[in-house]
């Protein structure tokens, strides 16, 4: 198109303005995102101690080789995978179900959305503080399970046994973000033209058919957006795990990659190694995002 059109003065001027409008962004992201990440990339090829003033030693892929053989790194990969899969799949599915249910109601739509959204208003520090009190052996979490399962006096070891600890971090995260994604889905569903639903109903489709054949395909873009967002967020999770381990929970089951990066830099002073881990995480997130976009493009439904 552009080639066919003869560029006029106005067009050129317009193009220039378009570029000018992006200059602040270019400067901003260069300084506060690209420079630091390039810096981290370069550092990842060095053996560098955070405290030492002596010149860092170039070791090529040494840090990456180390990580591939490091048990602690693979443990972190495992912890991150468990957390991400365990959080983002339920998040997407349940927020979708909640949204469909809410949309089917004629009353209290707003009330439910607000209730589910409210935990998102708390800051992570506050959320972790509340949950740490609830996960104390004498706290509400045990009382609740003992009531539901009729097991008086049982300690479910929320913050100590690996499985329960992982579950605990997943619950906190899920609790905090469920409303956020529900709200996005509700809006997505609301944007489906009412006429399509009604037409299907008249054709004799039941609720399930309406949902699976009409709603679901039509909110595909929303689903994609929600799942990419939820997944990236989960892969980058830090504060819940950080605050839990700081309060005495065992590190190993919830030593997610970001926490490992942080400890490698801050506790072990190995900034080169930490940078290498950061770059790996960056690449993982990027690849997974691209895959999600590819897969969903390939199945694009026409409507």
């Amino acid at each position, binding site marked *: 198109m552009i080639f066919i059109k003869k560029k006029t003065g106005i067009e050129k001027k317009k193009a220039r303005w378009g*570029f000018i409008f992006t200059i602040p962004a270019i400067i901003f992201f260069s300084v506060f995102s690209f420079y630091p990440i390039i810096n981290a990339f370069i550092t990842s090829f060095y053996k560098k101690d955070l405290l030492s003033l002596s010149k860092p030693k170039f070791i090529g892929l040494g840090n990456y080789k180390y990580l591939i053989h490091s048990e602690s790194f693979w443990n972190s990969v495992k912890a991150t995978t468990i957390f991400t899969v365990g959080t983002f799949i339920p998040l997407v599915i349940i927020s979708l179900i909640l949204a469909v249910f809410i949309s089917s109601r004629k009353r209290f739509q707003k009330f439910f959305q*607000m*209730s589910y959204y409210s*935990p998102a208003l708390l800051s992570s520090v506050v959320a972790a503080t509340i949950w740490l009190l609830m996960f104390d052996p004498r706290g509400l979490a045990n009382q609740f399970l003992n009531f539901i399962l009729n097991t008086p006096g049982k300690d479910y070891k929320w913050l100590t046994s690996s499985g329960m600890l992982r579950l605990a971090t997943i619950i906190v995260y899920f609790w905090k973000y469920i409303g956020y994604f529900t709200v996005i889905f509700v809006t997505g569903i609301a944007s489906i033209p009412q006429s399509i639903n009604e037409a299907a109903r008249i054709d004799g489709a039941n609720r399930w058919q309406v949902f699976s054949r009409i709603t679901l395909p039509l909110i595909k873009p929303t689903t994609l957006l929600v799942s990419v967002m939820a997944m990236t967020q989960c892969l980058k999770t830090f504060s819940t795990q950080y605050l839990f381990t700081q309060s005495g929970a065992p590190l190993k089951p919830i030593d997610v990659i970001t926490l490992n990066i942080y400890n490698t830099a801050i506790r072990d002073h190995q900034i080169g190694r930490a940078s290498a881990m950061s770059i790996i995480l960056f690449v993982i997130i990027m690849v997974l995002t691209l895959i999600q976009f590819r897969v969903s493009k390939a199945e694009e439904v026409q409507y």
Partner: protein
Amino acid sequence: MPKQKSYFFSTVADILIWIFLTVFAIIVLVPLVFMFTASFMPAKDIMSIPYPWIPKTFYIKNYWQALRGNDGSFIYVRNILNSFLVASVTSIGTILLCSITGYGLAKFQYKGRNFILMMILSTMMIPFEAIMIPLYLIVTNLGWQDTYWALIVPFLMSAFGVFLMRQFLLTFPDELIDAARIDGASEIGIFFRVVLPNSVPPMATLAILTFRSQWDSLLWPLLVIQSPKMKTIPLYIVQFAEEKFTNEGALMAAAVIASIPMLILFLSLTKYFIGGSNVYTGGKE
């Protein structure tokens, strides 16, 4: 007969859906109710089995202790104002900068436009811990340690914000812009007088998102802020929790106080928290 059956089923399903939604809402709200009730209890009641739920006496002392601080300096009040200032300024900056960028990326044709967009989007994938130390170096070299600049400037734009604004502006009617151009408005004038006033919903959503994430931020302020009067709410809470005289009740009171401003914001701007998110779906309605 089949009609009746389906009517019966849909009533049952209806009731089940109501129950499901209600139970889920209760479960989600329990921790909040816990926070609120515990803030009115002396420490020994909070850890008792079973949890009392209704405070026996309204132990207002917790709130007094939380506000006053253990040293009686009332610094928390200042810290709350700091959080407000930082979050507000960042939000305003973000909506302006992100919408102007989004506008430039959505409504103009030029070489390298998609490249710029892709580069900006790729920053969404950078984990903060990865760039924390280089970022710290930049900020200290600019001499911003222990200032509001350090808390605000590095967060003045977000890739997600640019993406959000661009998505919205893609569907912005060209006629409005062209009409203004024919009237002889300058490009900057068009942005401020035509585009901005007509993009309130996504801007409000973006502002709320930014406000929330700034309100929540812990690690970064911890590194760049030193003096007590510059601290933000999360920093105060971490410190308050650690001071040895603090009990759980007072801590919960501090948590409630920290949540009130967000709650007010939420209740007064509900439509942007909840309704505003149509911007995620590309603005098609």
